[in-house]
């Protein structure tokens, strides 16, 4: 940097345009080298992180099924008041749209979409699709009213308005429905937003539960990790390194192995219960598995290193002389610890706490294997929608909720951490 400044100073004095040019060239070369060195990382981030996240957010609001498969119906329903039965032209439009679908998979996607809106939509659509592409092909051309009669004769549910509402509502290419559902809201028939019925209200509770479990795990990690990290930081380097390996070995073990080990330890006839019973602490085996207790115990164990490592690195940088100075100035040792030492480790507490909390809210395998249905976190339902229901719009919307929760937390931490970091 200084060489460049000196050179440009010389160039300025001499005023030779050639020198200035060659300097500019050298500078731009350097800039391009710097850019090309960071380029692989930028491309990597773009391809593996930003593009998938953008695709995920897109899928959470995309709604192509009805718009693509029922174009005529969308037009026919555009003037419908949504209170009385739709015009016969709408019935005819559905019959024509379904008959015109080129491949079955499109009808299947449409049926799936409408079924997740109104249970029963799947069989209604598939039944009508089979008739429209089968038997009805050989019938003579019919008027709109006749097509309506034909559809009602095939399936009387076509007289029910809820199916028509679902079609009309989803006729546009984009929808807020998945995102609304992921926070227990829905669009009502007249376009307003309302809460869903109580027995379908679920994701708000699950999100709260996710936060609750994460907070408990974070606190447990802090309570267990803080004294350990403190002790490690006061030990001579050789001993501290050996003990650090004990912290890290489980950290390097596969998560499934650790979860399986906890099942062995915590089950009814397991080691923990046997020990408790032989010490006469409990008379009957305690239920430690397939409930909240098991989930929290094993998540705390798995996430503990993420708390210990940042704490340890911050504590190593706190000079022990401060504590000694406080004590020699007359402070009680415990008071000195809490008033002099602990405030200097806030950065580690914040980093460790945030790390553990953010990792916790995405937990999936551990609660799935060690918890009951009441202990499943948001990721479990994302997996359910991805794999079992194959409702990827819903899965992406829940993913978006999880992502925004993480970002909000991180923003809060940044505000909070800035003030703390300025101390050091």
């Amino acid at each position, binding site marked *: 940097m200084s060489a460049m400044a000196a050179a440009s100073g010389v160039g300025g004095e001499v005023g030779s345009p050639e020198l200035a040019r060659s300097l500019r060239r050298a500078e731009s070369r350097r800039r391009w080298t710097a850019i090309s060195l960071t380029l692989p990382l930028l491309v990597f981030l773009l391809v593996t992180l930003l593009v998938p996240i953008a695709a995920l957010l897109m899928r959470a609001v995309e709604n192509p099924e009805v718009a693509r498969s029922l174009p005529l119906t969308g037009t026919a329903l555009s003037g419908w008041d949504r209170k009385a039965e739709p015009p016969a032209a709408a019935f005819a439009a559905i019959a024509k749209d379904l008959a015109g679908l080129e491949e079955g998979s499109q009808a299947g996607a449409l*049926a*799936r979409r409408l079924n997740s809106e109104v249970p029963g939509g*799947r069989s209604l659509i598939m039944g009508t699709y089979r008739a429209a592409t089968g038997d009805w092909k050989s019938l003579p051309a019919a008027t709109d009213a006749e097509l309506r009669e034909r559809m009602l004769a095939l399936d009387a549910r076509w007289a029910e308005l809820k199916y028509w509402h679902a079609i009309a509502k989803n006729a546009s290419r984009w929808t807020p429905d998945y995102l609304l559902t992921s926070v227990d809201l829905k669009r009502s028939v007249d376009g307003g937003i309302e809460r869903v019925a*109580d027995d379908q209200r679920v994701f708000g509770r699950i999100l709260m539960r996710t936060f609750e479990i994460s907070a408990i795990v974070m606190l447990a990690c802090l309570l267990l990790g803080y004294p350990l990290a403190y002790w490690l930081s006061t030990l001579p380097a050789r001993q501290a390194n050996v003990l650090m390996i004990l912290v890290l070995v489980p950290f390097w073990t596969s998560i499934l192995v650790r979860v399986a080990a906890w099942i062995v330890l915590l*089950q*009814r006839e397991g080691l923990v219960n046997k020990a408790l019973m032989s010490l006469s602490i409990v008379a009957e085996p305690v239920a430690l598995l397939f409930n909240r207790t098991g989930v929290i115990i094993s998540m705390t164990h798995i996430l503990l290193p993420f708390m210990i490592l940042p704490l340890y690195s911050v504590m190593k940088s706190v000079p022990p002389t401060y504590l000694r100075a406080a004590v020699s100035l007359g402070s009680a040792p415990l008071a000195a610890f809490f008033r002099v030492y602990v405030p200097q480790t806030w950065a580690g507490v914040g980093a460790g706490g945030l790390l553990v909390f953010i990792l916790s809210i995405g937990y999936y395998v551990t609660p799935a294997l060690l918890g009951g*249905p009441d202990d*499943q976190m948001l990721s479990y*339902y994302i997996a359910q929608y*991805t794999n079992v229901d194959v409702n990827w719009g819903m899965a992406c919307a829940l993913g978006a909720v999880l992502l925004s929760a993480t970002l909000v937390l991180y923003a809060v931490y940044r505000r909070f951490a800035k003030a703390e970091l300025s101390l050091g």
Partner: protein
Amino acid sequence: MNTFKLAASVAAMLALPAFAQSQLTVVNFGGANANAQKKAYYEPFEKTGTKVISVEYNGEQAKVKAMVEAKKVTWDVVELESPDVGRGCDEGLFEKLDYSKIGSKADFAPAAAVHECGIGIFVWSTVMAYNGDKLKEAPKTWADFWDTKKFPGKRAMRKGARYNVEFALMADGVKPEDVYKVLSTPAGADRAFKKLGELKANIQWWEAGAQPPQFLVAGDVVMATAYNGRIDAAAREGKNLKISWVNQIYDLEYYGIVKGTPNRDAAYKYLAFALGAGPQGEYAKNIAYGPTNTKALAKLDAKTLGNLPTAAANMKGGLEFNIKFWADQGEALEKRFASWSTQ
């Protein structure tokens, strides 16, 4: 140079079988059931010259969907649960089967075994199971399963709405033939969840089919809903686990051919082989699931037959799992279950 030669010869050895014989990827659910399929289907079929690559999955149709959509199909024959055959068929994930290449439709029972996009390979069921060492008196009905005074202790049930809402209604006195009629009304669904609520505090939930026999053996629970084959497998290992067949819910497991597979001909040959009377009978000897090829029944002894869900005595009061109902109502009921479990 030596390293290069070695690498080249290893590569040649790996590549050779692929050239010498064709291969077929068959996807299964793992566990005792996959072992029975390997013994009865894969190994004898390999003698005909096609290598079978066995892949395990857990029923995730998302994988099949991703494969078909990307037109990069690496799975050929997939074992499927019944709801997935119907949904996958609607969405074009599986080939429409040409039965002339498999066998005579008349040989297969029950009627649902012959599906447009899949062929039923065995009948399995979800039953009430208990540990014969722990319970002096056998539970006889689903009302007994709910009766925590007469049979104190926990019960294991599958995490989710499926099967549990049906069992709850039968425990509440609904006749098996009326279960789906009642369940399709909002009041019926309320009734099922209310009945499940009575037992909620005493339920230990299971996720994988291997868990209920473990819970029963470990004494965690006194009764469980379980897949009959898993209980039978544990009984073969000498555990005193018993099945109460009353009001079992039976269902079919299918083979489907993934749409767009390059090995379609080999897949048809495999289906024709596996659904023959010989392999079907051999399969039922290895695990207590009922063959769909009725001709296979003649090859089984009375003891094996008595353990199958399809035995006449076991079928009495049995309920056929209603694919159509679950295809329509499944997502809503599972969501309601999630909501119910948080309350």
